[in-house]
């Protein structure tokens, strides 16, 4: 997750910085410069109270934006009313501007910055639409209420260039920034996905190679023998070796299953092989035990699968476990067997035979740790 998180964090930090910068610019233009211009020419306004009301509206929007910036929240549903308020304030202000000198009015420069502060995290087209709406509002005001001549039009156009240009530049930068951070996040996600896939593939390959090595030691010679005819399938010894290998493979497949009690799960798979040959297998477990590591489980189940592979007609597999001892026993009607040598030192195997019945027990004592 590291890269994606970092990319998201970087992008949100950039956005926040830009938002603060726009808020400061808007406040400077609308509140500080606006107040200076407003008070300097106060005597020329017919209705100063309307100007102050418009000023208060912009100040209110900026105050809300300031609170939102501090709390790091977006505008959500309040965005549209806020933009409407800005445009309404501008309209009210322009209606009471004396002599149609909108392009030098305090509101003409201020409204766009305040609007941009509200719309900064929206797509570029929204900002452009707002800027156009404001420009149109001002122009209609000029065109409808006052006489248009070359000088007034030139003055309006000159004023508009800076008033629209600067906020537009900032909006474009914000858009580009947003796209770059989105791409960066997507790239980081992709990189992470590829890395994860690779790690999974490497682990899976290692596991397969290891499993193959484990099976090849015993199964491969058997298969080779059967293939070149040196081993005859009708030989009971070969049959029992095949049964043992089949059970080993089943156990190998079962080892990777996610189950609550892996030892019992693997024993069930071993028992299933015997069950298929028509041996009546009874599996009974008592107690609770800590799950033994794979190598220990193999030692414990090896006994069971060896006996089960050679059982004649019935077998009883039992597990008794506790915190200090796990014992796997198999009793079956089979002859003498070679005891598989346990690979782990903590496992002991014992065999008792009598009256055509063989009982093998493998016990594991978890070392206290």
């Amino acid at each position, binding site marked *: 997750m590291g890269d994606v998180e970092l990319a998201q964090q970087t992008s949100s930090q950039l956005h926040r910085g830009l938002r603060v910068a726009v808020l400061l610019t808007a406040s400077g233009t609308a509140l500080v410069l606006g107040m200076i211009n407003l008070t300097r020419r106060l005597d020329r306004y017919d209705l100063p109270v309307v100007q102050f009301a418009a000023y208060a509206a912009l100040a209110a929007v900026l105050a809300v934006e300031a609170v939102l910036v501090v709390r790091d929240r977006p505008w959500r549903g309040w965005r549209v009313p806020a933009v409407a308020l800005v445009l309404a304030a501008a309209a009210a202000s322009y209606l009471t501007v004396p002599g149609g000198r909108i392009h030098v009015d305090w509101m003409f420069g201020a409204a766009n910055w305040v609007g941009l502060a509200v719309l900064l995290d929206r797509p570029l087209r929204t900002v452009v639409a707002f800027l156009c709406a404001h420009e149109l509002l001002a122009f209609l005001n000029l065109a409808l209420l006052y006489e248009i001549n070359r000088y007034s039009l030139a003055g309006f156009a000159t004023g508009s260039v800076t008033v629209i240009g600067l906020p537009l530049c900032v909006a474009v930068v914000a858009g580009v920034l947003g796209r770059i951070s989105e791409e960066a996040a997507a790239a980081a996600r992709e990189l992470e996905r590829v890395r994860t896939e690779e790690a999974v593939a490497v682990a899976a390959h290692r596991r397969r190679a290891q499993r193959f090595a484990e099976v090849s030691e015993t199964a491969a010679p058997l298969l080779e023998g059967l293939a070149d005819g040196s081993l005859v399938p009708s030989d009971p010894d070969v049959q029992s070796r095949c049964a043992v290998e089949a059970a080993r493979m089943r156990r190998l497949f079962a080892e990777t299953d996610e189950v609550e009690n892996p030892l019992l799960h693997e024993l069930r798979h071993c028992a299933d092989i015997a069950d298929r040959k028509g041996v009546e297998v009874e599996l009974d477990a008592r107690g*609770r035990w800590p799950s033994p590591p794979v190598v220990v489980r193999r030692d414990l189940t090896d006994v069971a699968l060896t006996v089960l592979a050679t059982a004649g007609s019935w077998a*009883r597999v039992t597990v008794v476990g506790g915190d200090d001892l796990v014992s796997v026993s198999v*009793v079956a009607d089979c002859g003498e067997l070679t005891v598989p040598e346990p690979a782990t030192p903590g496992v002991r195997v014992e065999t008792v035979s009598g009256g055509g019945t063989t*009982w093998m*027990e493998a016990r594991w004592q978890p070392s206290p740790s």
Partner: protein
Amino acid sequence: MAAEPELITAVIVDDHVAIAAGVRYWCEQADPPIRLIDAGARLADVWTGPGAEADVVVFDLELVPGQPQFGELRRLVDSGRRVVVYSQHADDATAIKCIDIGALAYLTKREGPHHLVPALRAAARGMPYTAPSLSGAIVADTAPDRPRLSPREIEVLRSWFASSSKELVAAKLHIGVKTVDTHITRARVKYANAGRAASTKSELVSRALDDGFITIAELNER
């Protein structure tokens, strides 16, 4: 057929016809045979008629599936009947609870004539019989108030559970078959006379049941 004095009579309470028929076959094949009365699922037939005279009661703990009838078992034991519980149930707590209540033997239905017939004979003499499944349940018992068993007793019980053959247990532990029996019996006696508050508590509980203070359902939740 007139009952001879040495002939053991057993009554079976089990709602599965196949089980009753199977047990009847095993009893007939036993040497000497055991006379079996089939009470079906009717507990009343254990208390009245020929069932009331039977030496041993073979009791299916779950006449109603999912609701082991410990209350009925308690009533039978309290009135001096010799009960062999023959249950579908294989969980350790149930087995130990039955022994606690006073059943002479607890067998799961997987345990066939090799264990049921000796259990019936032992019960007819008023002696307990410990089947491998019960043996396993005792070994796996981790209740804090469980009776203290010696390591040898635990070893014998575990081996008996695993091999289900006393000869194999004897051969493995290098002891005689009689000694194996002695260890099993000794461990079993400790469980029967565990000194747990069970004996008085059982009376208390069955009285509370009779008086309707608690229900069987509440009892089973414990």
